[in-house]
C-alpha cells in the first residue's frame, strides 16, 4: 500500500462523500484511503508545510477499526473512514497542540475538544494537526512559530490564515476534509485563496470546548472541504448542542446536508453588499464575483443591492474587541501550569519569570494584540475604545437585521485580493488586517457565513472566493447558494476548479 498502487493517487482526489460510500460498500478499505493520504503528505508536505504533526500510526489504527466495524456488518456514519486534517488550535489527547506558538511547543493536552470527540465518534480518521498563525492571529500563517504554510496554487504565496494549514491540506490533496476556526475570517479567507470551501457556522452552532480561545465572543469552529456537500456532511458531524460550552445553542442543527444536495436558489433574495467593492478590490476578484452573482440570477435568484453603512467600521471595532478579549484569554499563559517557562533560576520571582517567558514564547503579532487589548481595556481609555467598539457592534447587527428584512442572504467577495506573496505584508499589521475586511462583520454579529470558489482571477490565475452571509441559525442557506454555484460553475469550467491546480513536485 503506497502511492505507487494504481488506486493511490485517485483516492486523494476523491470527495469525502465518495470515499465514505466506497469504504462502506467495502470496495476500498479505510486503511487504504488513510495510507494513500499519509503517502501524499510524505510526498508533498516538505514543500507545502500544511501539517505541524502527522499522527500516522493512530490514523491507521482508527481506519482499521472502521474497516472491522464495516466488515462485521455494522452500520457506520456518512463520513466513516474518511481522513481529516485538524487545526492545531483544537485539543486532541495524545497529540501535541501548539496553536502555532513556541509557548505550547510539545504540549500534549489531557483531553479532547468536543469537535474532536464528535469527529472520532463519527469514525472520521484524524491524520494530524495543521499549521496556523500563532494563536490564530493572522491572515497568512506567517505568524506561525514553526514557519509558514505555502499555497499549493503557487508555493511563493500565502495559503490564507489563520487556518492556512487546513486550507492548504485540502488544495494539496493531503486530506479531503479539514477543521478550521473562524474569529474574523480564519476559515473563509484561507478557503477563498486556495479555491476550497469553508464555512463559519452560526455562533453557538459548534462547540468551543477544547478550542484554545482567541476571542471568546467571536471564535467558532467549522468545516473545510473541497466540495459543498462534503462541507455540509462534516458540518452535521461537528454541530449541535454541547453542555460543556456555555454559549452553545440548544436547537436542532439547520438542514445543511439537504440544502447542499438541493442547491435550489430560485426565488431566493440575494443582497449584494454595496460597501464591499471599489477601491482596494482586485479587478479579477470583482469580475469573478460579478459573474457569480449573474449566475445566481440566471438560476432564479433575485439580486438586490443592499447598503450596510456600519460595515465600514467593522474593522476598527474588531481590532479593539478581539485584542481586548485576547489579552484576557492569553493571560492564562503565565508559565505556571502548562507550556514554556524561562528564567526560573531560583531567585527570580513568579512575576519576573512570567514576563520573561511571555517575552520569549510569544511572537510579534501576539504581543501587538495583547498590548492593544491591554491599552483598550485600561482605565481612562476603556470608554473611548472598547466601549465605543461595542456600540459599533450593535450598529453592525442593526445593519444585518435591516438587510435581512429585504433579503435571505448577503453576498460579497470573501477577500479583496487573491493570495499575496509570502513576506509581502508580514511586518505591516494594518495591510495584513485588511484581508479580513469583508469577513469580520459576520463574526461581530454571530451569524453564519461561508466562502465558495468562483474561479481564477484573470490577471494572476489565482482563486477567488465568494462570501455568503445568512442570518443566525440559517446556515442551510449558505449551502443552498454554495451548491447552486458549484454545480453551474463546475459545468462551465468543465470540472472542479482544483482540477486545474499545478502539480506539486513530489519529494522522494
Amino acid at each position, binding site marked *: 500500500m503506497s502511492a505507487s498502487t494504481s488506486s493511490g493517487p485517485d483516492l486523494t482526489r476523491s470527495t469525502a462523500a465518495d470515499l465514505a460510500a466506497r469504504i462502506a460498500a467495502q470496495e476500498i478499505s479505510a486503511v487504504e484511503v488513510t495510507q494513500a493520504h499519509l503517502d501524499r503528505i510524505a510526498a508533498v508536505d516538505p514543500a507545502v508545510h500544511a501539517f505541524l504533526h502527522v499522527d500516522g500510526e493512530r490514523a491507521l489504527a482508527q481506519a482499521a477499526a472502521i474497516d472491522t466495524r464495516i466488515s462485521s456488518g455494522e452500520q457506520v456514519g456518512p463520513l466513516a473512514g474518511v481522513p481529516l486534517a485538524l487545526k492545531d488550535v483544537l485539543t486532541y489527547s495524545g497529540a501535541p497542540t501548539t496553536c502555532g506558538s513556541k509557548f505550547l511547543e510539545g*504540549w*500534549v*493536552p*489531557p*483531553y479532547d475538544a468536543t469537535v474532536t470527540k464528535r469527529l472520532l465518534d463519527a469514525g472520521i480518521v484524524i491524520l494530524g494537526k495543521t499549521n496556523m498563525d500563532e494563536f490564530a492571529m493572522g491572515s497568512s500563517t506567517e505568524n506561525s512559530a514553526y514557519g509558514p504554510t505555502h499555497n499549493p496554487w503557487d508555493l511563493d504565496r500565502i495559503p490564507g490564515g489563520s487556518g492556512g494549514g487546513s486550507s492548504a491540506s485540502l488544495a494539496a490533496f493531503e486530506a479531503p476534509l479539514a477543521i478550521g476556526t473562524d474569529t474574523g475570517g480564519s476559515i473563509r479567507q484561507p478557503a477563498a485563496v486556495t479555491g476550497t470551501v469553508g464555512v463559519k457556522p452560526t*455562533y*453557538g452552532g459548534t462547540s468551543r470546548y477544547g478550542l484554545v480561545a482567541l476571542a471568546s*465572543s467571536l471564535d467558532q469552529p467549522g468545516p473545510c472541504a473541497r466540495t459543498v456537500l462534503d462541507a455540509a456532511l462534516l458540518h452535521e458531524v461537528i454541530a449541535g448542542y454541547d453542555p460543556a460550552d*456555555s*454559549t452553545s*445553542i440548544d436547537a436542532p442543527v439547520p438542514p445543511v446536508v439537504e440544502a447542499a444536495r438541493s442547491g435550489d436558489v430560485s426565488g431566493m433574495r440575494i443582497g449584494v453588499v454595496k460597501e464591499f467593492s471599489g477601491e482596494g478590490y482586485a479587478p479579477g476578484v470583482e469580475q469573478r464575483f460579478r459573474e457569480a452573482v449573474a449566475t445566481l440570477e440566471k438560476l432564479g435568484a433575485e439580486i438586490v443591492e443592499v447598503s450596510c453603512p456600519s460595515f465600514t*467600521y467593522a474593522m*476598527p*471595532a474588531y*481590532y479593539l474587541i478581539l485584542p481586548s478579549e485576547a*489579552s484576557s484569554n492569553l493571560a492564562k499563559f503565565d508559565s*505556571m*501550569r*502548562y*507550556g*514554556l*517557562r524561562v528564567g*526560573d533560576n*531560583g531567585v*527570580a*520571582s*513568579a512575576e*519576573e*519569570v512570567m*514576563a*520573561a517567558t*511571555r*517575552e520569549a514564547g*510569544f511572537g*510579534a503579532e501576539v*504581543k*501587538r494584540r*495583547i*498590548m*492593544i487589548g*491591554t*491599552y*483598550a481595556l*485600561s482605565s481612562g481609555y476603556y470608554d*473611548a475604545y472598547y*466601549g*465605543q*467598539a*461595542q*456600540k*459599533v*457592534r*450593535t*450598529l453592525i*447587527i442593526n445593519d444585518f437585521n435591516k438587510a435581512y428584512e429585504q433579503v435571505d442572504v448577503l453576498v460579497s467577495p470573501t477577500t479583496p485580493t487573491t493570495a499575496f506573496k509570502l513576506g509581502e505584508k508580514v511586518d505591516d*499589521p*494594518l495591510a495584513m488586517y485588511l484581508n479580513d475586511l469583508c469577513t469580520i462583520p459576520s463574526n461581530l*454579529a*454571530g451569524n453564519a457565513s461561508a466562502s465558495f470558489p468562483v474561479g481564477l482571477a484573470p490577471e494572476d490565475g489565482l482563486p477567488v472566493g465568494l462570501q455568503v452571509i445568512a442570518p*443566525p441559525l440559517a446556515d442551510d442557506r449558505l449551502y443552498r447558494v454554495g451548491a447552486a454555484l458549484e454545480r453551474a460553475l463546475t459545468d462551465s469550467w468543465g470540472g472542479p476548479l482544483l482540477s486545474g491546480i499545478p502539480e506539486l513536485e513530489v519529494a522522494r
Partner: protein
Amino acid sequence: MALSREEVAALGRLARIELSTEELEHLAPQLDQILEHVARVSEVAAADIQPTSHPLPLSNVFRSDEVRECLSAEEALSGAPAVEDGRFRVPRILGESA
C-alpha cells in the same frame, strides 16, 4: 496620539511581557498606527446606542451539581513546566523583603 517608548514599555509591564529595547523601537510606531486606525470607532457610536458584548442573548448557564469524571492529578500536571510532590512548582511569589 504618538505612543512613546515609555508608554509601550508600561503596556508591556501591564501585560507581563518583558520587551527588549529593539522591540520597543519596532512596536511603538506599529501600535500607534493601529490605535490611530481603531480610533475611528469614536466617529459613529453615539450615546443612545446600547453596547453589545456578545452576539447571543444568553444568561448564565448552570449544570446540575453532580459528581462527574474529571482530570486525574497526573493528567492535570502532565503539561506543567515544573512539578514537585504532586503539585505545580512555581517560582517564589513574595518580594525580596519577605
